[in-house]
């Protein structure tokens, strides 16, 4: 059941009506539990049993850990719990990848038969609800939270349908307290929720889905194109993945808001980050904080010396890459980001006491340079994320880094593609010129005037969604009308699935 389907809207309205009619918290939570399992069943059929398994194992593990008095025993239970929770994820997501590696290695060993690949379907959302379950068990182990007394409440937390399929990765400490009282659907959460949902729909179905054909056209045959197209496709992909994922999250947060729950934000203007560390505090925030709290810190964090800190950071980011998918390009992407983080840590430490290169240079200008340089490297990483084939990836990276302005036609004969590219390049030349001119004007204003910098910073960082949700009803209705109209006009034909469903 996709968020933009008629079935989902009927489902959501039914849930809202039932929640509104049943005022007692137990009944509301029972409704949420049943509807969440129904939602998952319509999406993933019998994998609903897997969801139940993960829920039960993690709940019981939490109980056992809490009741164990001996720290060694707690550790053993934790280890068993983690293995049990990770086995399904490992099997469904990484079995074929592991077999592929094994089969490649075994060619160098004494005779071993090829292990067969299995035709496995990845249960949607497994990465997300498994991580939520892991965070519950580990937080109990660390004494951060008490185990939930009621199993059905815990089951609601794990299966809660807005965040079930593609995040955010919610912690028990953020969600379970909200189940202590009943929820009511009021005008404020209606407006907040719908405002957020509409913005999410626009990001996903208007922006991301319209970027997709151009991105796919170029990255499906990247060696046909020069640097202009590769860079163009990279920028578009960066926009696509941000709008796709954050659009989903906005819809999920909006739906949760409608029902009266608050889920954690997962993005905060990541493309305004000034350095790689800041990027990971703004991009997929719940995943990066999970990696930090449950992998990086567990490995020792920064408490065991510089070399070990770098090692822990790199391993954490490699696992982050692996989490995204069972393929080498994701591991390379994760490793690359690990290197960026290491490098940032290194130079921050070393350059702390080095005087600024051009002391008279305005802080505003420094800020813009930092953002641009950071995003240059972030977008370079997106090539690794998007292009699965390693030789194509190297080609795209070389075209991104070493600019090739050979504008000879793409291989003739690919008529549809040539038409798309010619349209893009014709349009792109004008957009490019406009962008360069606008950028120069912008930089000049910034250099000259702190006032403008403050204005621009305000525009870029202000929570406009909250502002819109607080508008008087007539203006809010106008917002809604415009958003719906844009959705009707600009949603492309067959909408691709949310990108993060595949993770």
């Amino acid at each position: 059941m996709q968020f933009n389907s008629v079935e989902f809207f009927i489902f959501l309205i039914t849930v809202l009506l039932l929640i509104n009619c049943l005022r007692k918290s137990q009944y509301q939570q029972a409704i949420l539990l049943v509807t969440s399992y129904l939602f998952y069943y319509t999406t993933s059929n019998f994998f609903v049993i897997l969801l139940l398994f993960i829920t039960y194992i993690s709940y019981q593990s939490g109980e056992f850990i809490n009741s164990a008095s001996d720290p060694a025993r707690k550790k053993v239970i934790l280890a068993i719990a983690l293995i049990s929770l990770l086995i399904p994820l490992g099997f469904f997501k990484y079995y074929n990848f592991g077999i592929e590696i094994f089969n490649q290695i075994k060619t160098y060993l004494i005779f071993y038969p090829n292990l067969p690949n299995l035709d496995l379907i990845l249960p949607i959302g497994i990465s997300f609800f498994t991580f939520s379950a892991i965070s519950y068990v580990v937080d109990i182990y660390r004494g951060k939270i008490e185990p939930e007394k009621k199993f059905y409440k815990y089951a609601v937390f794990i299966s809660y349908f807005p965040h079930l399929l593609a995040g955010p990765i919610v912690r028990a400490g953020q969600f379970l307290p909200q189940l202590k009282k009943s929820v009511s659907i009021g005008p404020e959460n209606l407006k907040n929720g719908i405002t957020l949902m509409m913005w999410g729909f626009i990001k996903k179905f208007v922006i991301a889905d319209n970027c997709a054909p151009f991105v796919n056209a170029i990255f499906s045959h990247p060696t046909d194109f020069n640097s202009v197209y590769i860079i163009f496709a990279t920028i578009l992909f960066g926009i696509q993945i941000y709008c796709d994922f954050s659009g989903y999250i906005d819809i999920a947060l909006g739906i949760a808001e409608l029902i009266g729950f608050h889920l954690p934000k997962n993005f905060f203007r990541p493309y305004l980050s000034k350095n790689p560390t800041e990027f990971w505090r703004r991009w997929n925030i719940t995943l990066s904080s999970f990696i930090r709290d449950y992998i990086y810190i567990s490995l020792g964090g920064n408490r065991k010396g510089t070399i070990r800190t770098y090692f822990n950071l790199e391993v954490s980011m490699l696992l982050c890459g692996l989490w995204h998918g069972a393929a080498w390009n994701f591991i390379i992407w994760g490793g690359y980001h690990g290197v960026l983080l290491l490098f940032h840590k290194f130079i921050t430490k070393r350059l702390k006491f080095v005087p600024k290169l051009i002391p008279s240079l305005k802080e505003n200008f420094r800020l813009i340079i930092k953002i641009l340089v950071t995003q240059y490297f972030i977008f370079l990483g997106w090539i690794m994320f998007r292009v699965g084939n390693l030789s194509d990836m190297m080609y795209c990276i070389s075209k991104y880094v070493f600019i090739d302005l050979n504008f000879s036609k793409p291989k003739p004969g690919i008529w549809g593609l040539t038409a798309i590219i010619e349209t893009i390049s014709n349009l792109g030349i004008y957009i490019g010129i406009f962008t360069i001119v606008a950028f120069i004007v912008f930089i000049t204003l910034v250099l000259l005037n702190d006032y403008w910098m403050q204005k621009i910073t305000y525009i870029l960082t202000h929570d406009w969604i909250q502002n819109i949700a607080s508008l008087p009803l007539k203006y809010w209705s106008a917002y809604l009308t415009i958003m719906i109209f844009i959705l009707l006009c600009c949603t492309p034909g067959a909408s691709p699935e949310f990108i993060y469903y595949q993770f």
Partner: protein
Amino acid sequence: MNNNSINVIIASIIFSIIIALVAYFLLIHFVVEVDLQKNQRELAILDFYEQPHDGDFFIIGSSLVYEGIDAYLIEDYLQKQGINRSVYNLGMSADKPLSRLPELEKLISSKPEVVVIGLNYDDLTNSTNIYDDRLALVSQRISRDEEYQTLLNDTQIKLLKQSPSENLFYNRKFILTSIYHFLRDILFKRENLNRGETFATNFKDPWNLKTNWTESEKIEVGKKYNKNATPVFSDLNPQKKALLYTLNKLQQNNIEVIIVNMPIDPYYSNNINESTRQNFFDFLNTTGVPWFDYEREYPSDFFADTEHMNVAGRTNFSPKVAELLTSFFKKGM
């Protein structure tokens, strides 16, 4: 008070949805659909079919036809032979026998005397792709004859059977182009539009290509037509069935048919598999319709690329087609 506020908000949401839908409908109906009628060749051809064309000659086929045939030259030639007939080039991009099926009934209703079908090996392969937009565009204008739909797949049938509301939603993909045309037509008079911009309603000389490829570009692309590409097999695939269906229907309605194997560049032609060629001609022999082979008639200089003729090409080829029509006309068909 809370309930009243919720009710007001719900009412606002419903009101917003209604207003957005109305605005969308108005945009599609008064801008997009009007533009599609003027600027989409598929719809312009359906309009064309709705006018009577008793005794006229139609030439149908893909871009090889609309680039390769100048109907004015054919008319001139025919007139010199004392044959006063109007000739129309109704070629459409990526046209194949399957894609023409939904429009066949309308073609027949305009009662031409002769239909010349320009074919190429690509038209009789096992591919059953039809450009989605073409099916969606004509879906509201054609009759849903069940007979030919057995040759289409489920997606194609679904597009053809779009309800008016589905079609209304489908047409959103034309919004940007329609707005562009709308603004262009306000700013510029229609007679000042260039050839490409009036292509949709040009049924005489709708050619578009202006620049010729270099020899090395042709060689490069010619390689893709390797001996195993675009094969025509001996079995009766959907494209062949569609062609037979078309021929049968035309002949049942006393419309004479001639098939022409269109000229192609030697860099393409030299890479055609011999069994493809044999299967193609064997099939044409089974149709019972006169066919003529011009595949290797012209050198590379007569082609803009490996498939489409240039000025020299169509200037030479169009009179050949006129000769064919003359000889058939004079034989009393």
